[in-house]
């Protein structure tokens, strides 16, 4: 399978949020305004690509040779948590402009299950380093696409007459359901499947 198909599969066909149900907390939590959604998406792209590559090296060159595969869960989450912390400190010192744009989202990323989930999926699928890189770029772009689309729709819904009981989250879930239905249309696209 070519890298381009892997990218498309990660980006659209198996969209991480709408098809795989990973990273739902930020998807519903941070999608009420368009500019925060873009900021969150950018931070996720950055952290996901970096953490996928680091955890891939950690798994292949430290955990596997030392026969410590059972420490995978603990090792990955600690690496991701410290990576996020490190990035936060580094941005604050070195690139204050980027920090003021992404800073508030970074701490939230530690508990974003999409980041850890992609690290696990790369191992479970037996991806090589290049495949890991392409897959994580595709997944994080797909996350950003879904988040930005959702934020745009939710800003419109705010002005719509919605029954009281369905205001807020329930109507957001229905929106997500319709979006997922639309994304199901990518099934079979270029011979890819779920």
């Amino acid at each position, binding site marked *: 399978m070519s890298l381009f198909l892997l990218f498309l599969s990660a980006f659209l066909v198996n969209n991480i949020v709408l098809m795989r149900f990973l*990273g739902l*907390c930020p998807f519903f939590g941070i999608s009420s305004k368009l500019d925060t959604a873009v900021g969150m998406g950018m931070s996720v792209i950055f952290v996901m690509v970096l953490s996928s590559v680091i955890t891939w090296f950690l798994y292949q060159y430290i955990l596997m040779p030392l026969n410590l595969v059972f420490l995978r869960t*603990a090792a990955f989450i600690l690496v991701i948590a410290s990576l996020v912390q490190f990035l936060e400190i580094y941005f604050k010192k070195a690139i204050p402009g980027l920090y003021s744009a992404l800073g508030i989202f970074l701490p939230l990323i530690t508990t974003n299950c999409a980041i850890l989930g992609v690290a*696990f999926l790369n191992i479970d699928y037996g991806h090589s380093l290049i495949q890991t890189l392409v897959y994580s770029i595709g997944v994080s772009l797909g996350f950003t696409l879904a988040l930005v689309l959702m934020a745009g729709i939710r800003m419109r819904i705010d002005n719509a007459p919605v029954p009281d*009981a369905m205001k807020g989250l329930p*109507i957001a*879930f229905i929106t997500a359901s319709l979006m997922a239905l639309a994304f199901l249309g990518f099934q079979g696209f270029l011979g890819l499947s779920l």
Partner: protein
Amino acid sequence: MFKTFFEGIVKNNPVLVLAIGLCPTLAVSTSAFNALGMGAAVIFVLTFSNLIVSSFRKVIPDSLRIPIFIIVISTFVTIVDYVMKAYLPGLSKNLGVFVPLIVVNCIILGRAEGFAYKNPVGKAILDGLGSGIGFTLAIFIMGTIREILGQGTWMSIPGGFEGFKVLGQGFLNYPVLFMILPPGGFLVIAFLMGGMRYFEARRSA
């Protein structure tokens, strides 16, 4: 004492009221049996991590508490992952990556930080059980609705019991496939959450 226990089940139901722990709720609720398996794993991890965090709460330094919680939680998650792989391989395969991902489930870290770290052991265990059962209840209801409508069976077990044919044989041939696909999951939780708010508002009015 038992107020702690019941609060987590209905009034502060982690999924349907607080809207946390959504990822496993939606991903795993394609059948009632998968949902129960996930619920049992979460109850186990939540109760034991609350127990450990609460018993060591006086010696855990404040500035290091989050990494320590994460290590405690991931220990129990690893135990569940390996036990499930050994004794319930079919279930483990169905739940897939969502078993190791219990480690980032906000319910567990939230209860460790918000409750177990400040309360005695007995209360912490009850809180863990209550929140865990609340989560299991929500995911089990979702699993039941989605499996009955989407597959026509209830409580079918992969490679074992084929499930109760709730809606009759004819339905099995033409189920509402939409329900076990991802969009169905979003739709079911939307109406469960909306329904719960509606009845809550009517009761307090």
